[in-house]
């Protein structure tokens, strides 16, 4: 998707990106340098994603947010200085975002996503959306899809988080390491050694849009069998997205008790609706979902940042299509929904 930039890296770029070039190669670095990224929502998660992407050395990052910086943001949002409370979150993040890597072009947009025309979103190569309602996410996902632009979204509530990716029809190369026996010595005095040979293979992955993933049909046997594996994170995400849609906000630390009750009630409704075994979605998973905990934002923001790097560099298999961080077990896993 990103045109290969024929220009060679400058000496300064080669120096600063030395370590990562050793990991993902020069070609990937050139693709990164040619890509334009939109980050929606400058909460703590948005800040983590922005940091990772800016450090990687993309061409440009646009920070989009119409919200004002709140005190609670500061517990995970390190791009906006504490003295900017009350100001726009995207604008107040710009200065520190630029300082992370002066070679990346950083801009901000303070309009609400609903006020922005479709054409706005398609000027980027990849869009990362956080903190939006399901309907908004689906709108942007569909706009991106129609223009063959990559779309990622994710959220962190308290300690819990998820990511969804729609890379449409994604081609990538993957390095496969093979071992082969090599004879080193002139005779049997030196043992045969194993040498690793890496070959690069081209692969392709097909994605589905967000609405398919969110409306996965749990009556189907292949999904029912997932219940045996026992991780309820998908449902926790559904409940938290519904909470946001219904109350037009996230669970509030100041209303921890009342909101927990609401969440547990919504959990019980979902259990009935999808015919999930009672007790499958434990209370524990819906207890620590207030605010954005810095450690969890770092974890989920790290995963999303790496997926952006994979998507634009078209190297290494990207996750298809949902990632969950379950803090109760400290497990992070990928599952495919909606196909």
């Amino acid at each position, binding site marked *: 998707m990103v045109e290969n930039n024929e220009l*060679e890296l400058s000496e300064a770029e*080669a120096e600063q990106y030395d370590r*990562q*070039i050793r990991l993902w190669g020069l070609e990937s670095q050139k693709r990164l340098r040619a890509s334009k990224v939109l980050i929606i929502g400058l909460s703590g998660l948005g800040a983590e994603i922005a940091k990772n992407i800016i450090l990687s050395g993309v061409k440009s990052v646009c920070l989009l947010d119409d919200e004002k910086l709140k005190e609670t943001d500061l517990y995970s949002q390190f791009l906006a200085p504490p003295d900017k409370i009350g100001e726009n979150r995207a604008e107040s993040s710009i200065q520190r975002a630029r300082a992370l890597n002066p070679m990346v072009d950083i801009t901000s947009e303070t309009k609400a996503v609903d006020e922005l025309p479709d054409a706005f979103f398609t000027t980027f190569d990849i869009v990362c959306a956080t903190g939006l309602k399901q309907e908004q996410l689906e709108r942007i996902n569909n706009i991106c899809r129609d223009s063959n632009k990559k779309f990622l979204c994710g959220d962190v509530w308290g300690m819990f988080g998820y990511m969804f990716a729609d890379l449409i029809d994604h081609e990538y190369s993957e390095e496969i390491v093979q071992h082969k026996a090599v004879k080193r010595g002139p005779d049997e005095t030196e043992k045969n050694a194993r040498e690793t040979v890496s070959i690069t293979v081209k692969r392709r992955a097909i994605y589905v849009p967000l609405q398919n993933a969110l409306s996965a049909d749990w009556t189907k046997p292949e999904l029912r069998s997932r219940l045996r594996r026992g991780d309820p994170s998908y449902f926790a995400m559904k409940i938290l997205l519904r909470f946001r849609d219904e109350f037009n906000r996230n669970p509030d630390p100041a209303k921890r008790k009342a909101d927990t009750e609401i969440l547990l009630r919504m959990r019980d409704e979902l259990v009935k609706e999808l015919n999930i075994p009672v007790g499958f979605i434990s209370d524990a998973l819906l207890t620590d979902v207030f605010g954005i905990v810095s450690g969890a934002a770092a974890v989920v923001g*790290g995963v999303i940042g790496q997926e952006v790097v994979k998507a634009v560099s078209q190297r290494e*298999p990207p996750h298809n299509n949902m990632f969950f961080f379950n803090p109760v077990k400290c497990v992070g896993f990928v599952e495919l929904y909606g196909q």
Partner: protein
Amino acid sequence: MVARVAGVFDEKLTEAIANSKILVVGAGGIGCEILKNLVLTGFPQIEIIDLDTIDVSNLNRQFLFHKEHVGKSKAQVAKDSALSFNPTVNIIAHHDSVISNDYGVSYFKQFNIVMNALDNRVARNHVNRMCLAANVPLIETGTAGYAGQVELIKKGLTQCYECQPKAPQKSFPGCTIRNTPSEPIHCIVWAKHLFNQLFGEEDPDQDVSPDTADPEAAGDAGASALSSEGTAAGNIERKSTRAWASDTNYDPEKLFSKLFGDDIRYLLSMENLWKKRRPPTPLTWDNLPGKDNAPTQHSGLPDQRVWTVHECAQVFAASCKALQTDLKSRPDGDHLVWDKDEKSAMDFVTACANIRAHIFNIQLKSRFEIKSMAGNIIPAIATANAIVAGLAVIRAQALLKGEIETCTSVYLRPKVNHRGQLFVPEKTLTAPNPKCYVCAPKPEVGLACNIKQLTLKDLNTAFKEGLNMQAPDATVEGKGLVVLSSEPGETDHNNEKTLEEIGLNDGCALLVDDFLQNYEVRVRLQQEDDEKSWRLVTDTDTPMPAPKEDKTANGSNGAKEPKPGPSRSKEDSDSDMEIIDEDDDGEPAPKPPKRRRTEISDEVVELC
């Protein structure tokens, strides 16, 4: 601050955080991320230690540092940047090595949790012991490329960092380096040794001249040439390489003719070596391949272009001169230390390694590739560091809540496993190895050596490098006889005596302790006539619990390669789990992703 906002965490954790004191060891890639998470979360009292200064190649991930900070203290700049996120927390920064008398057991005892974000095994071992001695929980972290891990170490409850033997440095026989290289890494090791011989700290174990004691050459070494010059040690008796180079005023042409002409012709005279190998081709300064080549088109970084032999010779000449000038500008007796980030030092090694590779018909490598191999660079990226640091702080929160049993090791995998997992937690804590020579109630280890040959000086080295002690004291068990003392000068007069000469024999036990680490171990001597140096024997009778880690070595950074010491005890290299070592370059210990081995280039030269 989160901790002080009601409702983000439950009351218990909120209070525990408000009363906590955390030590972060290391302000590199993971350290910066951990510090950020702690500060934002509102951990009120944090100390951070790092002896390093900021380099431009850190900036792609150590996000608390910017270009204007290059050259400054990591710990100090990290503190300043982190305070701008939350000025209400109290951070104390130490621009210092954690291995210092200033940070004794009582220092460690003041913390609720110690978080390691280190990049070398020596410091990790040390902090491990300090935390065991202080009985403070240690959260140990590391990344290598896309992979990483977080593990809890708590005395008596979990494995300690040293419960499982660590994989050895990849090592090459000295004769392979000196006589019969067959891979680029052999030439690179040789070139680094040459650097030390000419400009660095001279080390007799890093000789670069032909080795006439090569067992393979036995019988014919010198038959056709120079037979009288070999000594028992296998080296040709002559002036030191440095003295000779100095006499020639580091004349590049003369150096070249000796190293890549005369020495190669000498090797050719050891005919047995070349019966089944392709013999090397000596080079002459005036007639080098590639001299008349037209410049070739190259795409990629300039450093990724492989130089012709002719270019290598030119770089050799220029870097020799630059290094000589540098050496001359220093006080008498001072020497250079090889550093991959120092241009002339890196140029010199690239040029010499490639010229030698050409001579032995080995593939030439670019400066970029040689830098990775010579500098033991483990590529580090922002995202993996962020994930591992996030998981580490989440584990720290669980510890503070009193949920230590849930704090199992978590592995960040480079790719999802068969169950789709990207972060894979262990199901239970891993119990300590009862035979561990560090954390067992009565630590014990065997030392295999030739008691007739090993000197007390060697023994001191074995305790420092093998047992990772800083200042060992040793007495004979039952007799109280002081064998080694950490007091300067106290036992120096015995340095050159062998163990036998001071009355030690097979089966004899020494009590060895390190005051700073508050660590004592009983060391049994085991006579082995064939052992050329020394080797730790961790468990001879019963096999250790299956090694949990498939890790790699203690890297060695540049000039500080470990001496030919530890030939090591057996180890399962195909085990299921791995330990990733670190964050960045320096002393790598990449712990390869599960079931995949990371190739690294640590090396130690063994005596033949």
